[in-house]
C-alpha cells in the first residue's frame, strides 16, 4: 500500500485501510464531478453527509463525539487521497471543520462538545472558523471584532473575512475581543446560523480553491448567550495558536500532496505527449525536470511526516511546523509550475488538473499565517535579533 520506505514507518494497517476508503470515496464521489464543481464554484451540500457516511470526517477526532478516533496521519491521508481528484476546494470545504472544531474540543464543556461537534461530524451541519478580518490577517492580536458582555449574553460587532465554508456554515467558531489586552483579550465563541445580527455575504470570487465557498461574515449587535463562549474570557489566543500548528501542518500536507499529484500528472503526460517524433519523456530536459519535481515532493513529504509524527507523540514542534509549511509552499509552487510547463498549452486549460493545482497552491504561502510570518516565528524561536 505505502511503497515509499521513507513514509512507511509512520503508518500501520489501519492507515492503509483508511487510505483505501478515502481513495474509493475520491474516485466514486469527487473525481467525476471535480471539473463541474470547480466551474460552479460550489459542491453539493450532500457531499458532507456522504463523506460522513463513509466514515471519513473528523478522522483524528475523538470517537465519543462522532470522530474516527484515529491519529493525525489518518487526517493527512484523507487530504492526500482527496487531492487525487485535483480540487483543493472540495477538500478545504469538507475540511473547514478541521479548523473550526478543535477550539470547541479544546475549550468547550462536555455539554458544548456534545451539542456542536457530532452534528458536524455526521455531515448534517457545516462548521467554519472565523478569525481573519478585513483589516487583520496574520496579525491576529489586532482582531477588532468585539464581544461585549451584557447580562447573560454577549453582543458581537465586527466582521470576518475570507471565511472558508462561510456561505453555508451552520456554526462559526468566532474569535472576538473581550478586553483591550492584545493577546489576553481574545475569546472564542460559537455563533449559530440564524442568530439575529449575523449575516453572510455571497461567495467570494477566488483565484483557486474554487469549489469551496468563501464569505465575509458580519456581526451587527449580534446577541449570543454566554453558554456560547468557549472556555474563559481571554483563552482564545492560546487555543488559536494550538489550532494554528495543526492548520499549518495541514496546509503543508496540501503542499506535498499537490506536488505529488502534479508530478504524477506530468509523468503521465510526458510519456503520452509526442514531439519531434518521440515522447517528450525522451528528452533529457524533461526527465531532469521530473527528477527534480520528484526529489522536492519526496523531501517535502518526509519533513511533513516527521513533523506530524512529533505532533502525534505530543512534542512541541512550532519552529518545525512553520519550516515545513514554508518548505511545502516553495515545493508546491515550483512543482506545479514545472507541471504546467510540461503540459504546455494543455497546462493552461482549465480542464487540466495541473492548471487547477497551479492556482490552488498559490494560497498556501498566504493562508494560515503567511510565509513572512512563518519566517518571523522561526527567526524569533531561533533567537535572531536578540
Amino acid at each position: 500500500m505505502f511503497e515509499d520506505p521513507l513514509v512507511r514507518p509512520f503508518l500501520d494497517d489501519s492507515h492503509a485501510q483508511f487510505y483505501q476508503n478515502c481513495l474509493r470515496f475520491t474516485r466514486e464521489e469527487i473525481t467525476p464531478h471535480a471539473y463541474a464543481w470547480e466551474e460552479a464554484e460550489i459542491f453539493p451540500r450532500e457531499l458532507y453527509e456522504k463523506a460522513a457516511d463513509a466514515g471519513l470526517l473528523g478522522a483524528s477526532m475523538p470517537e465519543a463525539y462522532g470522530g474516527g478516533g484515529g491519529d493525525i496521519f489518518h487526517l493527512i491521508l484523507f487530504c492526500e487521497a482527496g487531492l487525487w481528484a485535483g480540487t483543493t476546494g472540495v477538500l478545504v470545504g469538507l475540511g473547514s471543520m478541521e479548523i473550526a472544531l478543535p477550539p470547541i474540543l479544546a475549550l468547550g464543556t462536555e455539554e458544548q462538545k456534545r451539542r456542536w461537534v457530532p452534528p458536524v461530524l455526521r455531515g448534517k451541519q457545516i462548521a467554519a472558523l472565523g478569525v481573519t478580518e478585513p483589516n487583520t490577517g496574520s496579525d491576529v492580536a489586532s482582531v477588532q471584532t468585539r464581544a461585549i458582555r451584557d447580562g447573560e449574553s454577549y453582543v458581537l460587532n465586527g466582521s470576518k473575512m475570507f471565511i472558508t465554508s462561510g456561505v453555508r456554515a451552520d456554526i462559526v467558531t468566532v474569535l472576538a475581543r473581550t478586553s483591550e489586552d492584545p493577546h489576553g483579550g481574545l475569546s472564542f465563541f460559537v455563533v449559530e446560523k440564524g442568530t439575529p445580527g449575523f449575516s453572510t455575504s455571497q461567495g467570494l470570487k477566488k483565484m483557486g480553491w474554487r469549489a469551496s465557498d468563501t464569505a465575509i461574515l458580519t456581526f451587527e449587535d449580534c446577541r449570543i448567550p454566554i453558554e456560547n463562549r468557549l472556555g474563559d474570557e481571554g483563552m482564545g489566543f492560546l487555543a488559536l495558536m494550538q489550532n494554528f500548528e495543526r492548520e499549518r501542518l495541514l496546509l503543508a500536507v496540501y503542499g506535498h500532496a499537490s506536488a505529488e499529484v502534479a508530478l504524477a500528472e506530468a509523468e503521465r503526460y510526458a510519456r503520452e505527449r509526442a514531439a519531434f517524433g518521440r515522447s517528450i519523456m525522451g528528452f533529457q530536459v524533461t526527465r531532469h525536470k521530473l527528477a527534480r519535481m520528484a526529489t522536492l515532493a519526496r523531501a517535502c513529504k518526509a519533513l511533513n511526516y516527521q513533523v506530524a509524527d512529533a505532533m502525534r507523540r505530543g512534542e512541541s514542534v512550532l519552529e518545525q511546523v512553520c519550516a515545513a509549511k514554508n518548505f511545502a509552499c516553495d515545493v508546491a509552487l515550483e512543482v506545479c509550475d514545472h507541471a504546467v510547463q510540461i503540459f504546455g498549452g494543455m497546462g493552461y486549460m482549465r480542464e487540466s488538473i495541473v492548471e487547477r493545482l497551479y492556482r490552488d497552491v498559490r494560497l498556501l504561502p498566504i493562508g494560515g499565517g503567511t510565509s513572512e510570518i512563518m519566517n518571523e516565528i522561526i527567526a524569533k524561536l531561533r533567537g535572531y535579533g536578540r
Partner: protein
Amino acid sequence: MKILVTTKRVEHYESKIRINAQGTGIVTDGLTYMINPFDEIALEEAVRLKDEHSAEVVVVAIGTEDATQQLRTGLAIGADRAILVKATQPIDSDVAARILKAVVDREEPNLVLMGKQAIDDDANQTGQLLAEFLGWPQATFAAKTESLESEAEKQKEPAIDLDDDTATVVREIDGGLETVEIDLPAVITVDLRLNIPRYPALPNIIKAKKKPLDELTLADLGITAEPKVTVLGYEPLPERQAGVVVDNVQTLLDKLQNEAKVL
C-alpha cells in the same frame, strides 16, 4: 446463527496487470490488493443479516500471511472472528472448495456466503463445488429485487430472507430474476446487484486489530493440495489495432460482413 464468509485476497481492480517475461504469472511489484469485490458484497450481506438475526460472522481466507490484511478489513466491516488457512502452493477451485469444506466441518455454520467468483481467475466454481462436497443446498448469483438506488438499499436491509430452517434467495438468471427457497445449512453465492458494500468506519478499523484471528495449516485440516488444474502459461491480450475511417455506410457494411464477419 453462524455465517461463514470468504474474503479472498485479489489484485485491486484498478491495478494494471502485467504478465512476467517467462509467461508463468503476473508481475506483482507495485500492485495493491483488496477483498474480492464479490466477497465484499457477501460480507456486507452477512453483516446486515448479523444485525437482524444476532448472528456470528466468521471470515475465512486461504493464502499467505498477506491475506491477513483482507481478513482485518473483514473484521473492520463487521465480522466477529477471522480464520486464515495458510497455504503457499497453487490452489484451484477444487482445492479451495475442499479446504473450505474442512473449515465448515470445524465451524458448523448455518450458512456459507461467498462471492459468485473472484475477479482474478473468474472461475465461478468454488461455491458450487463446496455445496456439492458438503451435500448442502445451494443458491447461486443472489441479487436484490429492488434497485441499488432503492430505499431498502439505503436502509441497508438484507436482501436474503432467513429464518431458522430456510433461506429465500432472489437469483439473477438470463432475462430476469428467480426466487428460490432452500433449506439451511446452505451455500449462497452472491452477484453484483445484491447490495452496495459499506466503508469500514475508522474506529472499527482500529478495533479490528483486537478481534481474534486464528491460523490453520492444511495439515491441521487434513488436506493435501492436489490441484486438478495446472496453469501452463499466461499471455497478454493482443494489442488493440488502430481503427480505419470508412467513406460511407456501404463500405462499413461490406467490412462488417466480409472482414470482421460480425453481420
